[in-house]
């Protein structure tokens, strides 16, 4: 079963991240590299991506004739997806364990970030016949 693990943050959260020290930033990046590598070695990795920051985010709607109407003004409280992993595991518990590992990524000052990870199942075509 596949799960998506999502890191979300508010604009303020992103702005804070931008102020991290070089050392903290490097530790975080190194953690993410190592974590992705582990997921690959464990045979559960499907995909992982980091997204551009909310400054660049646009809401797009179809206008007349389908022309795009863009809007970039968001309330401060809105949460933005910062990045995600998709993993293929054998149980929800295994997905939660992996999410907890992602959540423990180092934060500023070498503290454990304990960032919240949203875990959602990816729908597939598979279903058990039930024997």
């Amino acid at each position, binding site marked *: *079963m*596949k799960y998506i693990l999502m890191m979300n943050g508010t604009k303020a959260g992103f702005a804070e991240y931008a102020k991290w020290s070089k050392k903290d930033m490097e530790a975080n990046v190194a953690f993410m590299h190592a974590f992705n590598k582990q997921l*690959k*070695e*464990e*045979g*559960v*990795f*499907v*995909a992982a991506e980091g997204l551009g920051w909310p400054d660049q985010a646009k809401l797009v709607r179809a206008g007349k004739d389908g022309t795009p109407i863009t809007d970039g003004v968001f309330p401060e409280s809105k949460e933005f997806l910062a990045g995600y992993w998709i993993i*293929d595991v*054998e149980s929800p518990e295994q997905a939660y364990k992996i999410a907890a590992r992602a959540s423990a990524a180092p934060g500023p000052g070498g503290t454990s970030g304990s960032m919240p990870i949203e875990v959602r*199942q*990816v*729908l*597939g*075509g*598979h*279903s*058990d*016949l*039930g*024997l």
Partner: protein
Amino acid sequence: MTAQASDFTIEYLLRELTPQVLGIVARRFRDFAAAEDAVQEASLAAAMRWPRDGLPENPRAWLTQVAFRRMIDQIRSESARRLRESEAAMEVEQFGAPLDAARESEQDDTLILLFMCCHPALTPASAIALTLRAVGGLTTAEIAHAFLVPEATMAQRISRSKQSIKESGIAFEMPTGKEREQRLRAVLHVLYLIFNEGYTSSVGAQLRRGDLSQEAIRLTRIMRKLQPDDAEVAGLLALMLLTDARRLARTSADGELIPLAKQDRALWDREQIAEGVALLSATLPKGSVGPYQLQAAIAAVHDEAARAEETDWPQILALYELLRRMSDNPMVMLNHAIAASMVHGATKGLELLDALQEDARVADHHRLDAARAHLLELAGDIDAAARHYRSAAAKTANLPERNFLLAQAARLSG
């Protein structure tokens, strides 16, 4: 013969030969993990060369020879690294050229391979991947494609499975007595899971040719040849044939699910139904009836009804009664409740579902909500039925199923 047809023949030949060659190599070198890699490499080499150069006179000997060479190269480089002594490399020569012998143990080899790949020490996903590669002769890329994961991820999964086998110290030999019986059940379960994956998937699960359920049927046919007197092996094969026979009727052109009662039965594969029924009829009288045979018998009753209204529900209910006594599976109880409602009315079925609500294994399962919705609709409680269809839709992880359940709710609310 067209080029394409000859590619097709080569692929099938390779897949048939894979477990045989692997058996010979694993037996000779007593290292399943390395042998499995060597055989996969030999097979890939053959897939490149045979279409170009034509089939060798003895394809099996060719593959064995190439796999042997890989093994020896690997041992040489390892021992060179470790020992830096020429003696060790000399010793390797003792393995000598492969003979196309060992025919008498070929059947045993395939069975031992299945026992290894489906070992209970492995998780289901690992066992499935390893079985498809080592016994099914599929490439890592094909398996990865079927399960919609990157090839590197599948390669890691397979390599970790082999590592687990190595660490568990499972020898390449035939288990005996009670152990053998347990391992046989484990093999059947893995084959069942492969079938299930292929049958219920609307996305993925497609191999380059055919799909996972056809591959599961092929492997179960092999298993049946190896264990012709095992009634449950026959039962599993019959179950697969009788279920797969409905494949074309099971979804619409847009991939929408069509429930059994609404399927166009003209689309059912009569030949496959006949084969499944014949197999089951030959097996059931032998006496040792197990869960796969009973499931197959239930599938056969459905398949033999010319119209949904003609389904022999009392017969199906009786079979579920037997099955229920044999296994403590909540899904069996759930299906039993549905059969009971078809015979004794929806109220009886709903009572049985109430009892299941206490079972933690299934209390939060979408199937329970879906079954309840169905029975509530039959009982005329339309609002509650719609509510339970929606609740089931929120819980399922299967997209076509969710669409189906939402459509049911919408139909009742409209």
